[in-house]
C-alpha cells in the first residue's frame, strides 16, 4: 500500500531533510520496517527496544491516533496519510 508519511523535524536528517515522503506497508509495523529499509537508523528513533513506538511519540493514520485504532497493527490503505508527531505541551 502506497502511503504518505509526514516526518517531524528531528527525524528529517534521516530523510534528506524531506518533511513528506512516500512509503509502503499494509500495517504501521510494516511501514516502519519499510522506512528502516529506505532510511537506515530511523526505526530505532521511532521505536523503543521492544519495537513499540516511543512513549513521547504519537502516530496518526488520517488524523486518528493509532492508540484509538489497532496500535502498530493498524491497517493501511492506498493513499493513507501517516503522521509522526512528538508530544507537545498544551493549552
Amino acid at each position: 500500500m502506497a502511503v504518505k508519511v509526514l516526518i517531524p523535524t528531528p527525524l528529517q536528517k534521516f530523510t534528506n531533510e524531506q518533511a513528506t515522503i512516500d512509503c509502503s506497508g499494509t500495517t504501521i509495523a510494516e511501514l516502519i520496517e519499510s522506512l528502516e529499509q529506505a532510511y537506515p537508523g530511523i526505526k530505532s528513533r521511532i521505536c523503543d527496544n521492544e519495537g513499540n513506538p516511543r512513549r513521547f511519540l504519537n502516530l496518526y493514520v488520517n488524523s486518528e491516533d493509532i492508540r484509538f485504532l489497532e496500535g502498530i497493527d493498524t491497517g493501511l490503505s492506498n493513499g493513507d496519510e501517516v503522521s509522526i508527531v512528538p508530544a507537545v505541551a498544551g493549552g
Partner: protein
Amino acid sequence: MTLQSLVSFASNTTSHGSTCKSLKCRECGAEYELKALHVCELCFGPLEVNYDYDQLRCTVTRDSIEAGPKSIWRYRPFLPVVGHEVIDLGTGMTPLVKSCRLARRLGLKNLYIKNDAVNMPTLSFKDRVVSVALTRARELGFSTVSCASTGNLANSTAAIAAHAGLDCCVFIPADLESGKVMGTLIYGPTVMAVEGNYDQVNRLCSEVANTHGWGFVNINLRPYYSEGSKTLGYEVIEQLGWQLPDHIVAPLASGSLFTKIYKGFREFTEAGLVEPKTVRFSGAQADGCSPIAQAYREGRDFVTPVKPNTIAKSIAIGNPADGIYALEIARKTNGAIESVTDLEIIDGIKLLAETEGIFTETAGGTTVAVLKKLIESGRIDPDETTVVYITGNGLKTQEAVQGYVGEPLTIEPKLASFERALERARTLERLEWQPVMI
C-alpha cells in the same frame, strides 16, 4: 544530530548575566544548545532548561527579588532568557487571597486562592508562559509566532505578539467559546479555526512547524514557554512570607503547569530562598477529559489518551504530554488526582464567585470542585495551609454558566414595581432554602 547541537552550548551561558546553561532531555539527559528545540533527538523526551544553580545560590537573595519589578521578571535569573530586553506587560504578581468565606464553607482553616483570573494582559496564567516564550522568540530571531490553543493561550499569544510587534498566527478548535475567539481576533492575528478537537489542532500545528520557520510557543519554544509557569510557585512562596504551603491544588491539562509549580518550589529551596518542606500536590480534571486522573485511580504509570467531552474546554487535552510527570509528582508528594462532572464544575464556579467574589472559568470551577471533593473525602487536612490555583477568568466562558445563574428581575421605573419584585425575590429565596432548613 547531535554533535552539532551539543557543541559550544557552554559559551552561551553567562555572557549576558543569564544563568541558563543548556537544554537537557528529561529522559536521557542529553544536552543541547539553547535553540528552538523541544524534543530530544535521541529518545523524543521533552527538553528542559538547565540552569547554573551554583551561580543562582550566590547571586539571588530575597532582597534582590523584592527589589525587582512587580511582575514575573523579578524572578528573571530563574527564567530562560539571555538578553537585556524582556517583554513586560505587568504579567504576574497576582493576588494571593486569604480565603475566609470559601474556607469556612469547606471547613479549612488556612486556604489561599492564587488568583490568575486577573493576570495581565489577558486574564489567565498563560500570560506568564507567553511573556517568557515571546521574549525568547525575539532573542532567537523569530518574526512570526504561533500556537495551538484551547483559547487562553491564543488570547495571550495574540496580545503579547501585538505589543512586541511580532506577526502572529494562532490555531484553535472551531467550537471554542465566543469570548475566547473574540479575545483573540481583537489583537489582529491570523486565526485558524480547525474543525477538530485540541489534540487534532496540536497535531496539525506540529506538522506546520515542520515546514514553516515560525516560533510555536507550545512546540519548538516549549522549553522556554513552560518555564514561565514556575513563577506561580515562586510568587506563592514570596506571598506566604517566604514559606512553602502544605498542599496545592491545580488544574491538569497537559500537566505542564503542575510540574512547573513543583520545579519552582524545588528551585527556591535549592537556592536557599525558602526552608525545605514536602508540599503535597493534587491535580484536578473534568470527568469528560480525565486521562491523568484515570491513570492515577488505576495505579498506572502511563497515560492512555482519551477523546474529550466536557464544558471545561481550556483543560480538555486528551493526550497530555506531561501527564506521566504529573502522576509521578502527585504520588511521590502524597497528593491526589481527582475528576469531577460538568455539573460539579458549574457549582465550583458559582461557589467561588458567591463566597469570594472571584469569577473563574471552567478550569477554575474544576479546581474548586476537586478541592471540595478532596476535603469531603478527608484527603486535605483542615489545618493544612492549602493553595488553590485559579488560572483563568469566567468572563471568557460565560456560555458554561448560562442558565445556571438566574435572570435579572425586569421592573418598571416605579417604586411599587420594585417593592413587588423584591418581595417575590425574597419569597423565592425562602423557597430555595426550605429543603435545606428541613
